[in-house]
């Protein structure tokens, strides 16, 4: 330890206290020696102890003090002494003596009892009056030192543990009597230099150092030629909170950036949609299980919306019923437009792709779009399922697009999301063919995790919306699951629990 650095780092309070620690001191002593308040001394001692300059020992003492009678007797002397001193060689009436000495009846009885036993007085009864006189032995006794009287003249308070044998004797006797002495337990802090502390030249500590640099010092330039107290730069400081975006939104912005860099245009749109756009336009048969009540949130009021341009509606209807004009068989059932009017909370962002396709003109091609947004599924919430979740949507509308491009875009996206290993497996969705399940390799659990669907839109989807059955690469992998690993979250519900401690402490999205 560098003593000079140590001394430089001392605070003004520490500097004020330290010079008096040439020997172990109690708090009280230090309070007397310095002109600091008790709290200031305490603070200084605490800091000194933290710096290992001193140790603070706590001592428990039994303190002896005079009680009410004791204080009186210390001034006047003990009643029995006063009694004996006033007695003469010839008999005197006891009641007179009592008045002269100023004793009460109890005290008088004690006096008579004590002295008579020792043979220091003799008592005679004349007529009805009690008479008393001192004996020769009594006179001798008066010349001997009285330890009890001496003890009362000590400088109180006294530390019981430091009493001398004769003091101890007097203490024991006096303690038996009423309200002469009182004892109490007192805890005292004693500060003592450590070996390190002893290496400091405490008498020569500079008391005039700069602590906080103030505007006043700057103005008056009083900081000049003074030392600045050295700070402990490794000190632990209290935590402060900053403003920040929700960690999921940070990741969403990152995803947005990825697709913008790939040259995709952003699609947005309502969360509440008609079944027509959410299902029918995506060639999902009206009796497909996904449209069941237990998968999709339907709306009570307003239950139904409006269908779009009748031309598109007619084309979609024909496609469902018999495959339209593109050599498809269709789903072979009778399509009900009332079913298509039913409002739903969108079950996928693919609804935005369907709507986008319906607005595109041939001159807009090739075109690429993406979306990231909330979708809804009528599900019981558990660690892996939420009824609101985010999906990442993308479409590439290009007469020359192919399946290899499809795999290319997705592989690139997942690389940027921190999953260099992705695989694609055959899957089934009513609106895509090829249909692909996207799986990424979990680097810690060492297993493949499913992230959701993708594929090339079926001609039955594209032709009614775009007017031509060109390839449309499309994907809509789940998003929430892909960011849980980064944030060390294992229960999906924790993504949206909005616990401020979690939000404040969560690391930034950095991939």
């Amino acid at each position, binding site marked *: 330890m560098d003593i000079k650095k140590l001394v430089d780092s001392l605070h003004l309070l520490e500097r004020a206290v330290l010079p008096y620690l040439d020997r172990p001191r109690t708090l009280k002593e230090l309070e007397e020696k310095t002109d600091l308040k008790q709290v200031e001394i305490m603070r200084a001692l605490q800091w000194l102890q933290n710096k290992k300059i001193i140790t603070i020992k706590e001592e428990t003492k039994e303190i002896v003090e005079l009680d009410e009678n004791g204080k009186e007797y210390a001034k006047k002397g003990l009643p029995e002494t006063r009694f004996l001193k006033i007695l003469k060689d010839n008999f005197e009436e006891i009641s007179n003596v009592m008045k002269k000495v100023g004793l009460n009846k109890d005290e008088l009885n004690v006096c008579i009892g004590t002295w008579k036993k020792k043979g220091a007085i003799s008592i005679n009864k004349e007529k009805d009056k009690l008479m008393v006189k001192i004996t020769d032995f009594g006179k001798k006794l008066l010349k001997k030192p009285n330890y009890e009287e001496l003890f009362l003249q000590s400088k109180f308070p006294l530390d019981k543990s430091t009493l001398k044998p004769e003091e101890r004797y007097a203490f024991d006797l006096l303690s038996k009597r009423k309200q002469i002495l009182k004892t109490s337990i007192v805890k005292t802090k004693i500060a003592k230099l450590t070996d390190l502390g002893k290496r400091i030249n405490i008498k020569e500590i500079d008391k005039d150092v700069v602590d906080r640099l103030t505007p006043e010092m700057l103005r008056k330039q009083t900081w000049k030629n003074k030392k600045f107290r050295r700070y402990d730069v490794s000190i632990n400081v209290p935590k402060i*909170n900053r*403003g*920040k*975006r*929700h960690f*999921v*939104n940070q990741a969403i*912005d990152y995803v947005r950036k990825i697709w*913008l860099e790939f*040259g995709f*245009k952003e699609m947005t749109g*309502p*969360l*509440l949609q*008609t079944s027509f756009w959410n299902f029918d336009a995506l060639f999902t048969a009206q*009796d497909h*299980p996904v449209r069941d009540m*237990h998968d999709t*949130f*339907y*709306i*009570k*009021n*307003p239950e139904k*919306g*409006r269908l779009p341009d009748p031309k598109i509606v007619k084309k979609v209807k024909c496609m469902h019923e018999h*495959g339209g004009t*593109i050599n498809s*068989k269709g789903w072979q059932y009778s399509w009900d437009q009332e079913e298509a009017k039913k*409002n739903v*909370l969108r079950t996928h962002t693919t609804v935005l792709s369907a709507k986008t396709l319906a607005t595109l003109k041939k001159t807009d091609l090739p075109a*690429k779009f993406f979306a990231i947004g909330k979708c*809804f599924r*009528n599900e019981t919430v558990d660690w892996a399922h939420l*009824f*609101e979740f985010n999906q990442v949507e993308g479409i590439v509308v*290009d007469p*020359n*697009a*192919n*399946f*290899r*491009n499809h795999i*290319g875009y997705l*592989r690139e996206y997942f690389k940027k999301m921190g999953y260099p290993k992705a695989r*694609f*497996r*055959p899957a*089934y969705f009513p609106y895509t*063919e*090829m249909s692909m399940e996207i799986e990424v390799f979990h680097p810690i659990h060492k297993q493949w995790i499913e992230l959701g669907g993708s594929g090339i839109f*079926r*001609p039955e989807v594209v032709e009614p919306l775009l007017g031509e059955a060109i390839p449309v690469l499309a994907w809509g992998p789940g998003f929430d699951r892909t960011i849980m690993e980064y944030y060390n979250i294992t229960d999906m519900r924790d*993504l*949206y629990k*909005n*616990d*401020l*401690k979690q*939000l404040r402490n969560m690391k930034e999205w950095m991939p």
Partner: protein
Amino acid sequence: MPTITLNKTVFEKLVGKKLTLDKLKDRISMLGTDLEKIEGDKIHVEVFPNRPDMLSESGFARAFSAFIGVKTGLRNYKIKKSGEKVIIDKSLKNIRPYTACAIVKKLKFDDERIKEMIQLQEKLHVTYGRNRKKVAIGIYPYDKIRAPIKFYAKDPEKVKFRPLDYPSELTGLQILSKHPTGRDYAHLLKGYKKFPFFEDSEGNILSMPPIINSHTTGKVTEKTTEVFIECSGFDFNTLSKCLNIIVTFFADLGGEVYSMDLIYQNKKYTTPDLRPDKMKLDLNYVNKLLGLNLKKTMIKKLLERMGYSYEEDYVLVPAYRTDVLHQIDLVEDIAIAYGYENFEEEIPNVATIGEEDSFEIFKRKIAYILVGLGLIETMTYHITNKEKHNKKMMIDLKCIQLENALTKDYNILRSWVIPSLMEVLTNNKHNDYPQKIFDIGVCFKENPIKETKTEEFTRLAVATTHSTADYTEIKQYLDALMRAIDLEYEVYDTDHPSFIPGRVGRVNVKGKDVAYIGEINPVVLQNWQLEMPVACFELNLTELFRLF
């Protein structure tokens, strides 16, 4: 997705080859199915709903065997004519008008095989049959039945028989309330005055589709060697496909398939019909879409791996395939046979300009301004309930309700965000104060002129809470935000039941009211069990963006 169970030994025999476990797992998943788990001799696999033909052990083995190159190409199934008739009555019109039937003979049943048959029947009911609505399947021991068979609809109180696994006879109507299966599917016959029945030439009731078979004539046992199969429903084509799946299942187990003549009012059909469908395939289309350069012979080989045959630009599609609507479906099967894992990825060299949605940019700017002011962003749900959204806030706003919410906790769509923030604050009482938060979220309200008759607004809510949170502080945030986006605003006083009277204002920008600002009413705080004052504002960002 339906899961089926395969017996490993039987499956390997049907496939004609043994694979290591890893290889088996990999091949199954690259065929477009999923190996769930293996327990001893049992393999559990998930089948996608577009392939009902793979819902049985032999159906799965058929597809798998071709895929791994053991038995490839179209399988030929022979059908013998039984000459037996099924007579379909016109009374079934609008009730359950169609059926497709067949007879299979020379079958050997044991316990395992009966279970397999029932598994296929049940899985078909659930998936392809849409829980028996679209297709109901009945399989009967043919030796207990005398053809011709009649299919008709009749007053259910006048027909009596002993339903499967039930101790006594019941009328058709009683079955719906007394038999467990009857209760499960009663909704399918709800509202009909007449119910459909199959009856044989001796007057025995065979079944009441789509509910249940008769116990006497409708239970296949280990003694059964011949079965009568019927599929009933609303679309003849769908029923024939379903029948084809079942008869090929039996044929693969060694059964002999016999056709039946179906006598409709004006038409006669003979089922099953296992002749393959012919579909034209454009090879350029295949190669262009896949980004490959496959030769005709290669394409032929790949098609055979998926159970098809290829002749002269045409693909012969097995009669049990229900999912081939367009040549795109053949392209996918070619891709699966080629192996998704064998496609080399390629990013096309086509330039397009990326563009971010302008409102998203606006929202992000707003968020970062607030972050700069030291606020923390939360993300709350759009679905909530009236208790939180209205009652606790001492307000009665009209809300859009969900039709089929799973719980009462989440059954309406929110129209403002402050209640969501109040809930966040309530859940954070144990955390350090001050708490200063914001949330940007979508809110809903009715609007009859819109497509969905609803309209959505994105709203920003800001709340601050600590022992001295007050109007001045919240207005400082609003003011800092408005200055940052350079919009002038005015605040005038107003009334709002959620706020303290005299401490709530309406914020006006360019003549439009866009926000409420104020101190939350102590009764509201109490309703949320909050013990600190809360000041907040809520700003309609959609509206603000229009004015911006």
